[in-house]
Structure formats: C-alpha cells, structure tokens
C-alpha cells in the first residue's frame, strides 16, 4: 500500500480514502462492515452543542442517478457524543470529527469538547438542511468569524467544509485568510423534487442536498479551480466519488485526500476492494497517489 500513502497537515494517512461526514453515521453500524484499518480516515456525522432530532420525514428522495437528503443534522449533542461515542472511535484510522452549529460560540464549544478525541476537526459550514436563509458558508462574515475563532482556539488540524453552491474561490479565500490550511470541496448540492400528484415539494423544507455519481465532474472542476488559485491549500475532494478511477481523477485535479459519502454508505462491504483497486490502478500506471496530486496543473504526469 506504499503507493497510497500521503501526509496531510502532519498527519499520516495510509491511504487517501476518507469516509465523509453523515452517510456513515457515527461509525457504530458502519464499522460492523468495514475494518477501520482499511480506510484512510473516518469523518463522524456532524455534532452540534445541543441534541437535534433532525427534520421530520421524508428525509430522503430518490432522484435519477442520485439521492436528495434532508436529514437536518440529527445528533445526540456534544455532551452525549463525548461521553458515549467519541472515546470509541477507532484509532486505526484518522479520526475526523465534524462540528456544527449556528454561531461562533457553538463551534467553539463543540470544537473544544471534542478536540481530545479527534485527529482532525472538520468545520461544517455548508449543511443545506438546517438554517433558514442558506448555509453558513453563504454568509462571509459569519464564516470568517467561525473559522478565525476555531483557528485561534483549537490546536488540531482544521478542515473547512465548503459549499458547492456558493462561489468556491471566495469561500476558499475566506478559509485561507482565517488560518485554515485544509478545505473540503464540498458538500451535497442544493436540489428539490416535486410531487406531480399534488403539486407540493417532497421535502418539507423544499430543498435537500443532492449527492451521487453525477456530481463528480462538478467536484473535479471546483477542486481544480481551488488548487489553481490557492496551491498552498490542501484539498479534500468530495462529491460523487464512486469508482477507484474517480480517486485518481480527484488527485489529478488537485485533491490530497478523497472523500466518499453516499458510495461508502450504499456499499460498505465493497470498500476494501475499492481501496485495493485504487492501488492497482496506481501500480499499473507506475505512479503514486502523492505524485498525482495536482499534476494536471503541471502538465500531467506523463
């Protein structure tokens, strides 16, 4: 597995495959199917200061080749999380804890409480399913303040999870200016679906987050742009990855880590094989993952 190794922000990843926040929950069920020693990193479902029931059903809508979700950040709240979940996160993989909230205070509170259990902390600025008036990332001032406060107060490497719906370069710039060195590009894309039998939206909040393979070209272009403009940022490529080939494409576009949400959720048993196949693709091409990172900006690797 030499060809898959990569270091990001001083943390060793045995491979670049990171399970995304949400679809795999807090890991309790997920790790019944997947050995933590096979995956590069695991991101927990987002944790907020208070427990959240999440949105009333339906929370899912099937779309052609995709999935629309409106979970609404259901989670037990940081205190229960820290007591019952966090200590059990497997140490055989890089533990990324995703933190959420509404205000600077919220993020600081959660960040400080979870920090000791995390190898990295992901700041979720881009959930499409909770706030009225858009994601946090669509509010430049608020996201600046949150990122600045977290950079100042937390000592674990921080990831800012950006939104594919806003201006990705602006968001990356805001992250960089506020001390963030790793950005996750990105969350699910905002979408909706309507019931033709009654003329109403399927989801009560109308909007949901679209995930699935079709997002991949969109993700790749965003990763490419961010890498072109801010080569000093480390990027997590996320959105639509569903095939070992996609992992290589993300690296080529500029991602140092590659994350998967929906695909890991629908086929947890297949992840082992997925990682082996990724390695095989690299071996066949006699190139390491690290060498691929951002190589399209240098005229390719061959």
């Amino acid at each position: 597995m030499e060809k898959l190794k990569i270091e990001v922000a001083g943390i060793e990843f045995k491979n670049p495959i990171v399970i995304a926040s949400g679809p795999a929950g807090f890991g309790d069920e997920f790790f019944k199917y997947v050995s933590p020693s096979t995956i590069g990193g695991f991101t927990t479902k987002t944790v907020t200061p208070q427990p959240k029931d999440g949105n009333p059903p339906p929370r899912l809508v099937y779309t052609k080749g995709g999935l629309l979700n409106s979970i609404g950040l259901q989670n037990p709240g940081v205190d229960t999380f820290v007591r019952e979940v966090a200590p059990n996160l497997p140490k055989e993989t890089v533990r990324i804890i995703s933190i959420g909230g509404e205000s600077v205070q919220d993020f600081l509170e959660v960040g400080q409480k979870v920090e000791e259990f995390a190898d990295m902390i992901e700041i979720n600025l881009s959930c499409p399913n909770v706030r009225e008036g858009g994601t946090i990332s669509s509010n430049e001032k608020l996201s600046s303040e949150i990122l600045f406060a977290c950079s100042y107060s937390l000592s674990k490497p921080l990831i800012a999870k950006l939104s594919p719906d806003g201006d990705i370069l602006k968001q990356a710039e805001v992250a960089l200016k506020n001390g963030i060195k790793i950005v996750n590009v990105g969350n699910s894309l905002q979408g909706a679906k309507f019931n033709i039998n009654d003329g109403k939206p399927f989801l009560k909040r109308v909007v949901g987050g679209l995930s699935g393979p079709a997002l991949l070209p969109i993700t790749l272009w965003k990763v490419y742009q961010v890498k072109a403009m801010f080569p000093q940022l480390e990027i997590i490529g996320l959105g639509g990855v569903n095939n070992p080939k996609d992992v290589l494409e993300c690296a080529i576009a500029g991602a140092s880590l590659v994350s998967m949400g929906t695909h890991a959720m629908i086929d947890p048993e297949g992840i082992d094989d997925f990682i082996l196949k990724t390695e095989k693709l690299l071996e066949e091409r006699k190139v390491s993952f690290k060498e691929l990172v951002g190589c399209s900006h240098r005229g390719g690797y061959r």
Partner: protein
Amino acid sequence: MEADVKAMKYSSRKEYFLLSFEYDEKDKVEPGQFFRLKTPTGPYIARPYSVYDFEDGVLTFLIKSGGEFEEHLKTSKKIIFDGPLGNAIPSLDNPLLIAGGVGYAPLHFYAKRNKSHLIVGSKDEELFNLVDIPPASVYTVEPTTALDVAKHSPTTNIIACGPIKMLSRAKEMFRDRNLFLILEEKMACGRGMCEGCAVMTSDGVKFVCKDGPTFSAKEVNLNWRN
C-alpha cells in the same frame, strides 16, 4: 450479493409483479425482514422490499410497478441484493393481520409461518389474481377497506401493514388493542447509519430499518410526518 432473476411474474394489467431469485440462507430470513434490491445498472440507491415468501431457497417479493427499479428490471437479468435487514414481526398469539395493497407482502410470509387470520384490502382487484391468499382469509376491494372489515373482529393482537393513512386510521380505531404497525420510509443505507428512515417514538427518533420495520402502535407518533 448478486443473483440471477429466477422469475418475474406480472399481474394482468401489470400493476404488480412477483420477483424471485435464489438465496442461500446464510442468515435466517424471518417474516417482517426486508432486502435491499437493485440491478447492476441501477437504480443508484437500492430499494427495500419486504420478503413475501421464502421457500426451497427461493426468495419472492411482491412489488408495485411504476418506479425506477422496475425500469431496470425490464432489461436486467441480474439482481444485486443485501439482507435480510430489519427485525422480525413479533410472534403473537393468533393475531389478526390487516394488509393494504403491497403491504400484504410481509403478512403473507408471516401467515405462512404463524397461525393467524388475514384480511387483505386493495384498490386494485388484480392484486388478488397475482398473489396467493391462504384459505379462510378475507379480501376486499375499496370502498370497503380492510379496516372496515377488521372492525368487527374481536381479536386482541393485530398487525397492520399498508399505506400510512391506513396505519394512522388503524391506530385510531384500535387504541385499546395490542396493535403493531409495519412502517415504511424511504431508505438509503438500510442499516441505521444514514438517519434517513426516521420515525418519532415515545423514546425519541428511531429508524425503520434498524429498529423496525414493525413498531408497537403505542410507541410511534405518526403525526410527526405531517
């Protein structure tokens, strides 16, 4: 896991079909449990279906036509499946089973394995020509619903499966009986990870896939959905 489609049998006007494939029973399959099914070409998210029958190593499902899964089945020879998932229907003493439409699927399987009375309702008569219904069962076509018939039964133990409106009405009607509801919510992971198939209970949010699909009527708050 993968299997070849063994048979796909449509009802006369193609409103419903029975789908079967071989399953080498590694895990015990119990009435009330479901499998997630898709084909190699789609749909992207596998759909959950209750087991309608499991005999001689062959699993059968009763499915309503019209969706994306059927679209792919029309040409695919292969099924990708995952299961059994979810919990078994509790074993009750001689319960009354009330089914609405394809809600008949898990109850058919339950009735085969447990002594029980059965009432099946359907808007669409052709369902009854496709499925097999044990002798001494009642079946009824709207406007007389399965619930209208069930009202007259004195049985204490009741298990109902069907459209959400039918379940809500059953909950109203049978307040003082020992009623179980087999619930349905859109699912993505089918294993209690994604928090997609939420149902509100007296004990907080639970998940149909992991904690259900059968719930005690007293426990669940169906109004959360509306």
